[in-house]
Every structure is written in C-alpha cells, then in structure tokens.
C-alpha cells in the first residue's frame, strides 16, 4: 500500500490492485459458498461487484491512515490490509475473531491496520470519523481518515451535520459514497428529491468528485488527488462512486427473482467487472501465482477459524466496561 501518485500505473501497481481485488472477490465468493452450512451464524452483506472502490481508494492510503465503513464492510477491511484469519474466525463466531466473536460480519475491526470497524446502524460512523479526524488534524502528521457509506446514508440528517462541521474545521476526512442506487430494495427515485448528490455536498463548501463508470483507475486517480489535498490541509474531500451490488442486500445469493430489479440491469456492470479488467493487465503467470496464493490464504483462514474455539460462557461478561 504505497502511495501511487502517477496517473499511469506501473505493472507493480496493477499487481497490487489485482491481488487486493481478487482477494476480496474470492473471500466473498467463498463466504457465499460456506453460508448454507450455517457455520456463519450472522447476517452477511456482500460487496461483490463493488470491490474496486475500496481497493482503488485504500491503495492511496498509508498504514497509519484510518478507514471506517459500514456493515457492507468486508471489502474495505481486506483492502486496508485487515487480518484475514481473524476476519474468518469472526465470521465463524470464534474467540480468535477480530472482535472475539462479539461483532460478527457487520463489525470487522483491525486497529493494527487502522481499520476502525463499521456500524450496522446506517450513517452512525460518519460523525465518528469526523471525531477521529479531529485528532488526526491535531497530531498534524499528515494522516487522513476515509469514511465509506452508501447512498442511503446520505438521507440521514447526521450526514449533513457532519458535512457542515467537518468543512467548518477543515478536517482531513475523505468522504466516500458508494452509490449503488439501492437502499435495501428501494431505488433512489423513492428516496431523493434530487439526484445530484454532489450539489448538496458542495453547498457545505466541500470539494467533490464523481466516478460514474466504476473504473478503478479513475477511482484510484481521483482518490489520490483528493488525499493529497487532504494531507496539505485543504479540508474535507468528497468522492461519489457509482456502482452496483451483484448479490442480495443481505445473504449469499442473487435475488433477481424478487422483482425489484432485473438481471439485465446488472449486465453492463458485470461486463465492466474490474477484477477481470485488472487481471488482464497482468502476465498469465503472475496472475496464476497470485490466485494460488490467495487460495492458500483463504484455506489457511478457514482452518484457523475452524480450529479456534467458540467463546466460553464467561466471555459473555468480558469487555462490557473498559478498565
């Protein structure tokens, strides 16, 4: 995760992006496979199809930069370098999980990589990111926080309160809206009086940018530029990325039988799959090697999760209060 400032990427850059994209895709597909076995007793919200946003943005972040996201947070956790073993153990409800079996799929955290967890109550992490950013600004080490949320989150009042205060105090926060056009099953027409999100955001004096075509290179580039501005004290930056959720809102499956959308609607997004796209930029051999490495990582993580014990009853009582 080094900084990549150039707008044309090197083969090392592609390699890194591919590895991250492919890891997320494979992990989530594997989760979907495991799910019917009931080993994962926790609601799952897959990011399949949306990975390029987390990957394109996190590739611009340093380890000491911070991220925070939502219940649909697997991609972000992995893109920021979160520990895969602890991730899998958490899904399995095991005591070696990143949250010791107390958080589950919706609350993945790894503070050793500055992954600040994620909230299951829409929008609640947005002002939290702002509080964290205050600290980063005080410390003046050039660190930033990237806060990810969905289009639905922009309907909650706290979103606007946060835009105002973050802008008023020029906090080093990158707002990332993953606009997949849906909140659960409701389309934007049912929810927004006006489709132009960025004009609402700009009203608070915040610089904005959009990536409408789900192009990881454009995301990478625009995020890089925004983060550079943040590090130089410009005040908050806002990036809207249009995207598409390939699976159900919650659960492992597709849901085109539900009637609220069609498979045709998804087709162009699948044709534009960024995992496949970046894969093509690599040598066959390099790619195969990454693929098999990832397969190994996942097998290892599953084993780790299987082997870890379930929390003992007394663990129910631990961590209610901090010492």
């Amino acid at each position, binding site marked *: 995760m080094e900084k990549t400032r150039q707008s044309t990427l090197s083969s090392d850059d592609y390699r890194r992006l591919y590895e991250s994209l492919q890891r997320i895709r494979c992990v989530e597909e594997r989760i979907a496979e495991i799910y019917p076995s*009931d080993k994962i*007793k*926790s*609601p799952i919200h897959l990011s399949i199809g949306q990975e390029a946003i987390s990957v394109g943005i996190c590739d611009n972040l340093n380890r000491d930069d911070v991220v925070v996201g939502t219940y649909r947070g697997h991609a972000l956790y992995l893109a920021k370098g979160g520990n895969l073993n602890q991730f899998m153990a958490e899904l399995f*409800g*095991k*005591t070696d*999980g990143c949250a010791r*079996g*107390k*958080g*589950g*799929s*919706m*609350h993945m955290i790894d503070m050793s990589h500055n992954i600040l967890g994620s*909230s*299951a*109550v*829409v*929008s609640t992490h947005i002002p939290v990111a702002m509080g964290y950013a205050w600290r980063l600004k005080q410390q003046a080490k050039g660190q930033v926080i990237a806060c990810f949320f969905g289009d*639905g*989150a922009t*309907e*909650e*009042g706290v979103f606007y309160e946060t835009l105002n205060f973050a802008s008023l105090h020029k906090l080093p926060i990158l707002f990332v809206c993953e606009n997949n056009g849906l*909140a*659960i*099953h*409701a389309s934007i027409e*049912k*929810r*927004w009086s006006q489709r132009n999100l960025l004009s609402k955001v700009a009203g608070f004096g915040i610089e904005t940018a959009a990536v409408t075509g789900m192009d990881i290179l454009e995301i990478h580039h625009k995020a890089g530029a925004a983060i550079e501005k943040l590090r130089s004290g410009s005040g908050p930056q806002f990036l809207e990325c249009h995207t598409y959720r390939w699976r159900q809102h*919650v*659960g492992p499956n597709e849901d085109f039988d*539900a*009637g*609220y959308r069609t498979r045709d609607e998804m087709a162009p997004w699948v044709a534009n799959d960024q995992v496949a796209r970046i894969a093509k930029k690599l040598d066959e051999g390099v790619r195969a090697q990454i693929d098999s490495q990832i397969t190994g990582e996942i097998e290892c993580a599953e084993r780790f999760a299987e082997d870890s014990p*379930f*929390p*003992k*009853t007394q*663990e*129910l*009582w631990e961590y*209610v209060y901090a010492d």
Partner: protein
Amino acid sequence: MPTNGHRLLGYAGALLEAVDQEMARDENVITFGIDLDDHIAIHGTTQGLQEKYGKDRAFSTPLSEDAMTGFAVGAAMAGMRPVHVHIRQDFLLLCMNQLINMAAKTHYMYGGQLKVPLVERASIGKSWGQGAQHSQALYSLFAHIPGLKVVAPSNAYDAKGCLIAAIRDNNPVIFVEHRLLYYTEAYVPTGSFEVEPGTARVCAEGNDLTLVGISNMVPECLRARELLAEQGIHVEVIDPIWLKPLDMATILMSAQKTGQLLVVDNAWTACGMSAEILACAAESGLTSSGIGMARMGFAPTTCPTSPSIEDAFYPNPGSIAAKIYSMVHPDKPPWQPDPDRAKLTYQSSFKGPF
C-alpha cells in the same frame, strides 16, 4: 383469549390484518416506514397495502427516521392516524427526540388543544448473530415517559387486537413486536376487536409462583411451566400485554395467592419493566407478607454475535425453570431441565432473513 370459531393465523398475518381492517374502516389511517413496500414487506406485515390503499396511504420513506417520526407527529396533529414502522427497535434511538419531546408532551403542553394518535411499530430481534446494534429491546425507555403508551403482544391474537386498539387510541403508542413471534400462530377472530390498554392476562394458572413474561418471554415462560409441572411445581403465567398502562392488580392478586413473584423480561433489567413490576409489588405492601421476588432478563452485557455466548445472553425455558425451582425449593440442590427439551421449535428453526 377466546378461540371459538376463529381460524389459526400467524402473528405477522394478524398484524397485517389489523392495519388492513383499520385502513379500510378509517381513511385517516396511513402507514409508512423504510422498506414498507418491497417484497419483504416488513416480514409480510405490510404486504399489499400499497396496492389496496394507494401510495398516499402506504409508502416507503427515505432513511430519515427522525424527520419521519416528526412527520408522523404532524400528520397525527392534523387528524390522521399514522402507523410508522421500523424493522428494528434499535433504530427508534433516532426517534427519541420526536417521540419524547414532542409526541408524548403535545396533548398536555397545549392544554388539550392537540392530540397525537400515532403508532410506532418496531420489532425486536434475537439470535443468529444480529449483534449489539440489532438486538435491543428498548421499551422501558418509553415506559418511563408519561404521555406514551407501550404494548408488547406475545401472540397473534393480541397482535391483532392490540394493534387495532393502538391505532384507535388517541395517544402515541409504542408497539413492540418480536421477530421470532412472527412465525407463531394463534386462533384469531376474523372481525375487528380491541385488546384494551391496561389489561393483563392470566395465561395459565398455578399456585406455587407467579411468573410474569414479557413479549417473547411469554412462550418461553409457558414452556418452563410445562417442564416444572413434571417436577410437581405449578406456576401461574401472566402476560401483562400492555406495559404502559400496566395492570399491576392482576399481577398482585396472583402473587398474593402464590407467595412468589418472578418477572422475566425480554430486555435488560436495570431500570426496566422487571424493575418497575417488582418496585410496584414492593410498594404495594406485598413485601410485608414476605413474598419472594426476583427478575430475569438479558445479561447485563452488550449482545454478542457468537452463538456460544449469544445463547447465554437471553433467558430461556431452561434457565427460567431452573430459577423457579430454586425459588420454590430454596433448600434443595439446584435442578435444570434437559436443555434439548427446553428448546422451542419455532425458535430453533429461525435463521434469517434479516
């Protein structure tokens, strides 16, 4: 609850029938909430309402719980009877200001010039790793506040009768639904009827101990009762149904008869409904006759996701029965029912959707 001539109906279907009948009866009834009109239809409880009554009377909203609660208050002031629906009670924490500072106080603070007849439906989750933010039962927060009413039906019959009563009530009513109960059935009249605020029900009689269960804890208590009967212990199970106004008379009468009182809440105990019921009993003078009192509820922890500890977070028929055994036989060694027999089938079959 009378059963003659009624068909078996699920709790979710009963809720739907209640709203449907009220919408047909009174055009001022409207219902709305996040995802009210999708194919999940709040677990079927709002299915078809939009088709039948139009988008002006049944609609989905943006993710703006605070404003939509204020909207409900305003619509109610204007003479409508809004039924605002939430998929989880945890989200009511976004609505507290409107519910407590506005809805609860309007009628009083304006000397009677306005009324706020609104219903705030919200379900409680449980199990399957729903976790810290999707599992809370927060009704005692509302039961603290004068001006609000709170109801938590434990079966399909009451679900229908209470919802009709809540819609017709001229005050804001917090309507508590338990997700696991959606799949349970009871005999429910086809016609319209009300389960009036402030009347508890004795669900099963007994002489050894008074067992008060709230919401989903009613079936759990009933199962505990069956297991205890095999041990020769006969408990009386009471469902308060309405938590505010609370029918303490029925509870006190039973406790006087049995000499022991255990309240099992489907929530935390501290400053909760179980505290309120015990405090009322203590104040009533029951204490001077030396009656034993206890309460159970969620563990005083946040709710974890791992099944091994999540199970220990909630009371269940096994832990309830064990507790009662020790209250009735304080001198005997502790006893526990076979854990397999303490499971409730409708619960073990639940695994999402979420």
